[in-house]
């Protein structure tokens, strides 16, 4: 199995973590988003979607992390708690994985884009109202994660960790990597983070998040040519 990944990307981190935790043998194929490698011809032969992660299992090519995660669990017959088969638990995990696209994922990504890419693409700091509005949205998602999805359970589905926790944690680390402290003043969230970290293993958690925790170095490391190539798309998004 080949996994095309850039650990800057949340969905890539989730796929990487699960593959490692389940001890699925794979070849890590690095796709450097900061150099625009995903937009090149080589990568285009792997996937026309031009996104990461991509999984190549023999001849079978699959995009979309939630699809890849479910595939890996099903194919490698992972312990049931990762993606429970019981009707109600399956509904709960699916509910989280569906909700998160346009909630925690969208809002966490927006913070990352505004903090890290806006200044690079637009040549100025983010207007305060834009940033404040984005933080408000992120806070709302975190409140919903805590109060609706977690409540007083150890993990999203219940007593055991699942793919939902891996996905949620990957998304939360995105704004965290830019310096936003989402955990202070949130004891429920902090306790859950500690449980997830303990379950996957402190070393592995650190390994998966090494790149995002250095996000502030992005402006020095980003390829100037790639930056110019990506500017039109981002300027469109930001204005």
């Amino acid at each position: 199995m080949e996994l095309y990944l850039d650990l800057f990307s949340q969905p890539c981190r989730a796929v990487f973590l699960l593959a490692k935790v389940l001890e699925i043998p794979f070849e890590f194929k690095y796709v450097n988003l900061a150099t625009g490698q995903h937009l090149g011809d080589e990568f285009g032969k792997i996937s026309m979607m031009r996104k990461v992660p991509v999984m190549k299992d023999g001849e079978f090519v699959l995009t979309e992390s939630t699809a890849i995660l479910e595939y890996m669990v099903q194919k490698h017959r992972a312990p049931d708690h990762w993606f429970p088969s019981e009707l109600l638990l399956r509904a709960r995990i699916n509910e989280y994985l569906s909700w998160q696209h346009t909630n925690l994922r969208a809002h966490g990504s927006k913070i990352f884009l505004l903090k890290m890419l806006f200044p690079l693409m637009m040549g100025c700091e983010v207007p305060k109202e834009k940033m404040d509005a984005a933080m408000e949205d992120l806070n709302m998602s975190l409140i919903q994660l805590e109060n609706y999805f977690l409540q007083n359970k150890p993990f999203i589905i219940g007593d055991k960790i699942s793919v939902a926790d891996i996905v949620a944690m990957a998304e939360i680390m995105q704004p965290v990597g830019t310096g936003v402290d989402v955990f202070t003043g949130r004891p429920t969230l902090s306790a859950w983070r500690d449980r997830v970290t303990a379950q996957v293993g402190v070393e592995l958690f650190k390994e998966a998040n090494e790149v995002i925790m250095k996000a502030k170095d992005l402006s020095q490391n980003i390829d100037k040519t790639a930056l110019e190539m990506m500017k039109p798309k981002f300027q469109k998004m930001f204005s």
Partner: protein
Amino acid sequence: MSLKLFLDMISQPCRSVFLFAKKNNLPVEVKLISLKNGEQHTEKFRKVNPLRKVPALKDGDFCMGESIPMMEYMAEKFNTPDHWFPKDLQKRARVNEYLSWQHLGIRMHGSKIFVMKVIDGPVVKLEVPEDKMARAMEDLNWSLDLIEKTFIKDGGFIGGEQISIADLVAIVEIMQPFASGVDVFQGRAKLSAWKERVVQAVGKELFDEAHKTILSAKDSVKQLDSSKVEYFRPLTVLYFL
């Protein structure tokens, strides 16, 4: 019937759930919720879905939101034909792939066009700048191109030779900008042919029933009480980054 579905047919995810439940003759009760009258904010509805969204499902004491998981729940509980949500590893993966992509693909861009054309100007009296509209159309076209060229299998459906949940989810999203007056099918022979196959598989009568509300939305908003306008404001800011 113990399983209740809470729907407003103006909403795309409600339509896919409706189509799936009715096509499979599932023993469910449909309860209509009026978003424009703010019924999603009532105490009663909040007990069903604290996140205040439709569609919502209540099966005895079990409540949930999110259309795709709801359809998967019903597929499993009522043992619907396999093609709706195949158990085979790779077929399942293909359906999941589409269902995941579409949230920030066609759903986002189609919804944006609908809100811009039907709600912003006519209801909220918010003028949409021309360049923003042009960019939104560009995004919509990009999504439609991807669906046509990458997701729909030649002569078939998104998951393969048979219709699945992915096709229901796709068609209801595509109908949203269509209902706002954008002819998404013009110049797209493959997309049009796929649409016909979906309509045939679901049944024209059922398809039309599901889309009656959205197809008359442009006109019905004209009769909207100005006091209801506040409910639409959140929608208008959602889609601007």
